[in-house]
């Protein structure tokens, strides 16, 4: 199969060309966020919901996102951040569908407060219910193969395993598990979500054969978010192209790359 950096992928009936999904939290200003969305060339932008208890507006961020999404032909992917049970997540997903007018939902059900690790059991319950209700479920999950299979069996069109805990910027902490996931689920769409800190981490994920990368903090918290969004775009494209081209297998020992045959020429001449 031949790929280039412009090759496409699908979520259900939707065809996407960008493999960079971008979060919208924590940017210094709405304008910087809008510029970062444009620089990333993303086609999928994540958003959230919050209770109105905390008064005050959102300082124009949501309108900026909506405008940037329209201008760049992107789509919104609302999340269920903050949910600790399947019941909560299902209710929040319904609210997100109404507010953002999309059946897409990034399903987050956290099972541990310290690591914000997804709860695989509640996640599966919620995913099953939401798929039946007509949602397109993007489950934020761990790199566990078996629970990933269950989510796919429940009707999720893809998996979004973590690279490292949310916001940690540690990169791919368990390459073995991620490689295993890729190898054992060769036909599944797999998106690395969470833990990416540097463009090299994103490139590495793509070199491992993942289909896309979702990140937020690494861009939002950069000293200059807009150039960082650009850097991540290039890294993701490079990693994808490298995967398609076939990264060479590592060797334990040196293997001469220059094809000198027999005696070295200069040594022979000097003698």
């Amino acid at each position, binding site marked *: 199969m031949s790929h280039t950096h412009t090759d496409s992928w699908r979520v259900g009936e939707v065809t996407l060309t960008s493999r960079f999904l971008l979060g919208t939290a924590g940017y210094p200003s709405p304008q910087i966020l809008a510029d970062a969305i444009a620089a990333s060339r993303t086609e999928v932008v994540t958003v959230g919901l919050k209770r*109105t208890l905390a008064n005050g507006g959102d300082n124009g961020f949501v309108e900026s996102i909506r405008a940037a999404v329209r201008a760049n032909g992107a789509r919104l992917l609302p999340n269920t951040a903050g949910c600790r049970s399947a019941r909560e997540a299902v209710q929040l997903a319904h*609210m997100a569908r109404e507010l953002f007018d999309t059946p897409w939902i990034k399903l987050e059900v956290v099972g541990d407060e310290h690591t914000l690790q997804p709860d695989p059991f509640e996640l599966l319950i919620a995913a099953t219910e939401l798929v039946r209700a007509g949602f397109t479920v993007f489950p934020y999950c761990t790199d566990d193969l078996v629970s990933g299979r269950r989510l796919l069996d429940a009707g999720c069109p893809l998996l979004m395993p973590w690279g490292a805990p949310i*916001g940690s910027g540690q990169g791919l902490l368990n390459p073995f598990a991620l490689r295993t996931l890729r190898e054992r689920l060769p036909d599944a769409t797999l998106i690395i979500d969470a833990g990416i800190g540097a463009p090299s981490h994103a490139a590495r994920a793509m070199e491992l054969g993942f289909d896309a990368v979702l990140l937020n903090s690494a861009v939002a918290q950069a000293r200059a978010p807009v150039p960082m969004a650009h850097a991540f775009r290039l890294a993701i494209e490079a990693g994808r192209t490298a995967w398609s081209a076939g990264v060479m297998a590592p060797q334990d020992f040196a293997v001469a790359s220059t094809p000198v045959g027999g005696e070295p020429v200069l040594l022979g001449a000097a003698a």
Partner: protein
Amino acid sequence: MITIQLDGQPHELPDACTLAALVDALGHAPHGIATAVDGLFVPLSQRAEIMLREGAAVLLFQPIVGG
């Protein structure tokens, strides 16, 4: 008068107040928020049919940035 829990805080309402009327009274645009009563989502199309009871737990959600 009845007292409901609005986003976890006590909130007094006149008797026979619907969820749609509460949203309006709070100054929210109907399409700008999503609603839940007693932990269950209430679609915009059904807010006018939901009569709030004493002690009802009402949550209102609005769009924000997210990762």
